[in-house]
Structure formats: structure tokens, C-alpha cells
């Protein structure tokens, strides 16, 4: 998966980063991802039984919050320079991965994500360096320092929690399979949603006569309504 992400990053670099409006949206998406990750790490900190790991997760969460701000700030600047539509606020959802996967697989998931991000960011860094885009290069280089630390400590904790390298590897494989399944489901849902919407629009058109019935039987009535008996 990491190899695929790296290749994709390499091929898509010119498309993603050439136009400031495009780049702004990409960085905004990164900010949202970091914010979501921050939430997951904070929740992990409150759910883990180990104060030591809780502390590590809190540090990690703090880094993610800072990264979200850094990405968002740069995204805003690029959007302004491109006179693009203002980007939304950095409010992300959280997948509650700790509860869903358990701590061992959660750590495996975080480690995999960090390793993948490192590989991807490396590609971006090379691209920005080659084109003399200093601000973007510094942004990614700064964030990558933390990402490297994250990848290292999560690997360490994973092995420690698993009890052996072999069990840790099993967890990493399990998570890779789980991620693959998740991607498959997401792709399936993407298609299914469109099929559903299109078909429902046909149902909607067919329901048009009901609209007249409703307007007659249930007109909008302003002002006070006194309760019916038993209400």
C-alpha cells in the first residue's frame, strides 16, 4: 500500500501542486486528516490503561494539532493568492479507531499511516525542492521531523505491546487487510450512493401527484394551533 501511495504521489505531483487553488485544497485536506488523527490520539490517550502510552498519545495528538494548523495556514494563504473560494473550518470527524480495533491494531494502524505519510511527503519534498518552492518545502520538512518520530515510537510501542516482533507483524498484516477491506467498502459505497440517488430521483418524480394531495390535506398553517384531545 505504501509503495502504491508513493508512486501515486510521484505521478500526481505536477497535477496536485502546480495550481495554488488546487494545492490549497490538498493542504486543507491534509489539515482535516491531521485534525481527525489528533482526535483519535486524544481518545486513545483516555482509553489506554497505560499512563506511559497515554502520555505518548497525548504528545502525538499535540503534534497532529500543530500540523493541522500549519497545513491550514498555508492552505489559506494559497487560496487567497488564487482568489479561490474560502476553505471551510478545520473540523474533522473521528473514526473511533481505538475502540473499533483494540489497542494493538490501533497502534499498528497508526504506525502504518505514519510510515505511509512519510513516504508520500518525501515525494512532495523532492518535488518542491526541485522547483524551488521554499515555503512548501519547509512546511513538509518540518512536519516530517515529527512524522519520523511518530513512526518510530509507534513501532516501538507496537512491539512492546505485542510482546514479540512476530505478533507485531501479524497485527500490521491484519491492519493492512482491514484497510484494504475499508477501501473496497468505500469504493462500493461511492458507486452505490450514486445509484441510490439516481433511482430515488425517479421515485421522487413518480411521487409528484402525492405533492398535490399533501398540499390539500396538510396545508401550512401559521399561528397558534390548539392541541387535539389527548395531545
Amino acid at each position, binding site marked *: 500500500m505504501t509503495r502504491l501511495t508513493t508512486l501515486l504521489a510521484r505521478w500526481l505531483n505536477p497535477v496536485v501542486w502546480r495550481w495554488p487553488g488546487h494545492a490549497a485544497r490538498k493542504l486543507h485536506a491534509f489539515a482535516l486528516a491531521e485534525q481527525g488523527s489528533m*482526535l483519535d490520539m486524544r481518545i486513545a490517550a483516555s482509553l489506554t490503561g497505560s499512563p*506511559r502510552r497515554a*502520555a505518548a498519545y*497525548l504528545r502525538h495528538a499535540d503534534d497532529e494539532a500543530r500540523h493541522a494548523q500549519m497545513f491550514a495556514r498555508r492552505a489559506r494563504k494559497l487560496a487567497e493568492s488564487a482568489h479561490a473560494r474560502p476553505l471551510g473550518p478545520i*473540523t474533522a470527524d473521528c473514526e473511533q479507531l481505538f475502540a473499533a480495533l483494540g489497542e494493538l491494531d490501533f497502534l499498528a494502524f497508526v504506525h502504518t499511516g505514519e510510515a505511509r505519510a512519510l513516504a508520500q511527503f518525501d515525494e512532495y519534498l523532492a518535488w518542491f525542492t526541485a522547483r524551488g518552492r521554499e515555503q512548501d518545502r519547509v512546511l513538509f520538512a518540518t512536519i516530517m521531523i515529527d512524522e519520523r518520530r511518530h513512526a518510530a515510537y509507534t513501532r516501538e510501542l507496537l512491539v512492546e505491546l505485542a510482546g514479540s516482533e512476530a505478533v507485531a507483524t501479524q497485527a500490521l498484516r491484519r491492519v493492512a487487510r482491514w484497510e484494504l477491506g475499508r477501501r473496497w467498502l468505500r469504493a462500493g459505497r461511492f458507486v452505490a450512493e450514486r445509484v441510490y440517488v439516481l433511482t430515488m430521483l425517479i421515485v421522487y418524480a413518480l411521487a409528484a401527484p402525492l*405533492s398535490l394531495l399533501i398540499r390539500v390535506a396538510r396545508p*401550512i398553517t*401559521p399561528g397558534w394551533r390548539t392541541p387535539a384531545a389527548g395531545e
Partner: protein
Amino acid sequence: MARVLGISAHYHDAAAALIVDGKLVAAIQQERLSRIKNDPSLPIAAARACLEFAGLAPEDLDAVAFYEQPFAKLERVLVNLLRNLPRTWKQFPRALASQLGSKLWVLDHLAEQLFVARDKVQCFEHHRCHAASAMFVSPYTDAAVLVVDGVGEHSSTTLWHGHDSELKLLASVDFPHSLGLLYAGLTAYLGFAVNEGEYKVMGLAAWGQATLRDEFARLIRLHADGSYELGLEYFAHMSDAELGFGPKLEALLGPRRPANKPWEFADPSDRVSRPGSRPDRHYANIAATLQAVLEDALLGLARRGRELSKSKNLCLAGGVALNALANARIQREAGFERVFVQPAAGDAGGALGAAILAALALGDPRPEPLVSAALGLPIDASRALTIAHELGLPIRRVDDPAAFTAELIARDKIVGFARGRFEWGPRALGQRSLLARPRERATRDRLNRLIKQREPFRPFAPAVASEHVERWFASPPDDMSPFMTTVAPVRPDVQAELAAVVHEDGTARLQTVEATRAPELHAVLAALAERGEHPIVLNTSLNGPGEPIVARSEDAIAFWLRHAIDALVLDDLVIERPT
């Protein structure tokens, strides 16, 4: 005697509330635990936290009560979608997916996820839950109850008569006419996030003048019988889930204000328009007119409630009841002797109301009047200590945390204060607060720079020992002031001494603090008085922008890591930042 869990969910501010043998034991908003602001998801974590706090297992519950009737809601949604055909074409698939995908099965989901028998799960009408959440924890045995929100199943405004343990519906106004949706539509028009930015509109109102009465007369007509009617052609809440207002509103009031655009009248001396600030002055005038019109409408409704119920007391509930400015005006002008608003008046409060209604149905007495909003989970100090040690933070115990906090405040420090159980509702009331000295305007600026990043027109609130209120404020403590759901005029002669908390219009959204209601905060105020300082602090929520208020020790430590406050007090533990 029964054990009942109340649940609100699926729209915004999901929550759980637990009543055991007629006593309100715990009430928790899901956002505090999930860390997602206004989290609407089924509050399983909050429900489990309530049970765990009470030492109960799911099978100990006699009932689980949901705050809305799913079938009635589905009926209204369907009727609205078909009535507004073809404008609703975009929303039709989504709305049905949302209803049939999750909302319709909410009672089944609750039974499955909470591990309780399905026949123990029941539901009550949305506005009845709101009314119960206010009436049955109020200090009154007889009261008119006014519920005003966006919409429940069908109603957006209801009037009730509450007497002992009974609630009788007197009258209602139905969707799509809705004061909540009027306010939400204008909130979106002013560029704020709906369901979150309403406080900002209220703050902005003080910076403008209600100069747009004629325009607003087209948006809403107030009738002599207290009811109202929206000019529906200006709104889009019947057909658009994103915006809430239509192109006619922009034709009437001018173009909407872009979201996230910086405001241009930060300086209080900027009372008159200057070229750069003109557009924002116009938006402030819109906010001021909206606020004035909303207050007029609420006064009409409250007076109608008084006529119909013949009661001397009023309970307010629903999201609109969180409008502290309007509540103060109702207290002054609606003709009631006493007015009460419970701290979680919005949708979260529905969980409390549902729990009470189910408990009453099982034969329990109504709960005691609500004294304190500290209904959440306590701080786990020992875990905080070990985590802080792991992080290498300079944490230590102090003998008298209140005196220690007072000393820091007296030295103009900003202190994160997390003691006792966290609050129920959107206000930090001294259990999870940021405290500071309220004298200097610079304190406010520092708070904004370091943490809050609020718009320049948004005020900070004061908390004052209730025995000293009248020295600073021109109105005495009332049934709302302990929960920060009202405002009071600051005496003109002391306004300069409270520069960080006096709003543009000379009022403040004060919290009156009694030792019985908020002992930890009261102890700080008493310690300040002992030091010869004013027994009054700036009290704002312990959270960063866009975040839920801190709940657990881990959240407090995360806050400390992220924000450069001077000290953090966690029960009797203290972390100080070296100067």
C-alpha cells in the same frame, strides 16, 4: 423507584442523562467524551459513562427514554419534502436515507448498543421533553413553560402549563414557522456556522443598532395573540439543508457576509462608520435588529403563556432559550415574578426531559430542583499525576488549590481550572474553566491571542460571589444567573474595573456563584476577597477554538500542551509554566 436513562441524539448535541430513584445522578453530553464539537451521534459513550458513574449495569435500567418520536418525525419530513416538490429534489434522497438508514430505527439501535431489552426503550415527544427538562428541575411547582427551538417532530414553539408533576400543552406553532430557524437562517447569512455561531450573533448585536425594523417586518410578522409567522419566501429551511435562507433575503438585506472574513471594528472607539468598517456595521445592525425582533417575539409568546397558564413563574427551554439577552428581557418585561432556564436548554436537555418523563411514568416523584450543573465525570487526579510525570511536566500537589488559584489570578495569570465533575450544558461554570482577573481589557486580548481566537465583538463572562453581586451589577441574582443563562447591566461606576468582561452595551453574561452550587469556584472567589481583591473573575470555557470543553484529565493535559496558559489546576494538582 426506577432507574431511567434519557437519550437525545441524531441532530446536534447528543447527550445522556440518568435518573435513579427520582434523583438526577448524571448528565453528560457526548461531545465531551468523543471530543467532536456538537457531536450528534448516538451517545453510547455518554450513556455508559453515566451508568458507570452510578455503579449500574445496563440490566439494572428500568427504562431508556428517547427525546423524540421517530415516526412522527418521519411523517413531518416526508410531508415537507413532498409539499415542497420540486424544490426538494436534491434533499429527497438524502433525507430518506437519513431517516430510513438510522433515525427510524433509533429505539432498536439503543436497545442493541446499550444491551437493554427492546421493550424497555420508549420515546416521548421532542417539545414535551424540552418542557419537562425545564419544569421538573425548576424551583417551581407551578409555571408556564415556553419551548422555542428550530423544530421537533412538528412544532417549533410550544406553550405548556406545568403543575407539580403534570405538563399540559396549551398551544403550539408548527414548522416551517420557527423562531429557531429564523435565527439560524440569519446566523448563516452573517457567515457563522449554524448551531454554533448563534452566540456570535448575540454578541455582535451589541455593536449595532436595530435600524432594519421595516425589512425584518417582512421576515417575520408578530401577531397580537403572541404567535408569529415567517415570511417563508425569504427562507430555504424547507428545501435546503446547507443554507437556510433564499435569494430574496439577500435582495432584501444585501449580500451575505462571507464566512471567515475578519471583522473590521475591533476598536471600541469605532462607534461610527468609517469607510473600511461600513459593511460590518451593516451586518452588526442586522444582528441587532434580529436580536430585537427575537426578543419582541419571545415577549409576546411569554405573555401569552402567562395569560393561558395564569402562573407567576416561567420556565424556558429549547435552543432559543440559550439567548441570554432575550432571557434577561423576558425576566424584566414579561410580567413573571421568576424565570428559570436549565443550563442545557438546547437539544442535549431533551435527554434530561425524556429521563424525567419516563421516571414519572414509572411512578417516581419529580427530581429536586437543579442546584448545580456539575453532573459529569470527576477529574481522575491520580491518572493526571502519572501521565504528567510521564510527560515530564512539573506537576505537584498543593494544600489549598483555591487559595493557590486566587494568588495566581491576583498576579494577572490565566489559570486553567478543572476541579470536580464537569458541567452539563454549553457553559463552563467553574468546573472546567479558564479563570483570569477581569480588570484589564488586555487580559481579554491575551486570552484571545493565546487561546480563544474569538471575533473582537465577543464578550467574556464574569463569575461573581453571589453575596457581592449588587456591588457590581444592577440586578440581583435570580434563578438563571447561577447557570449563566442571562445577562445583567454592570453598574456604570465599576465598569472600568471590569474592563475585560463588560460588553459593548454595558451588560455582562454573569454567573452568580454560591458555595452550595459551585463550591470550588466559590472558594476561589472567597480566597480572592481574603487577599483584598474583588471577588469576581473572568470565567470562560476551558477549550480551544472549535473544541468541546475539557472533560477528563487527559483532555486538560492536552489543553495544557497546546495552549500557553500560565497554570493548570487539576483538583489539588498544579502545573505551572515557568515565567
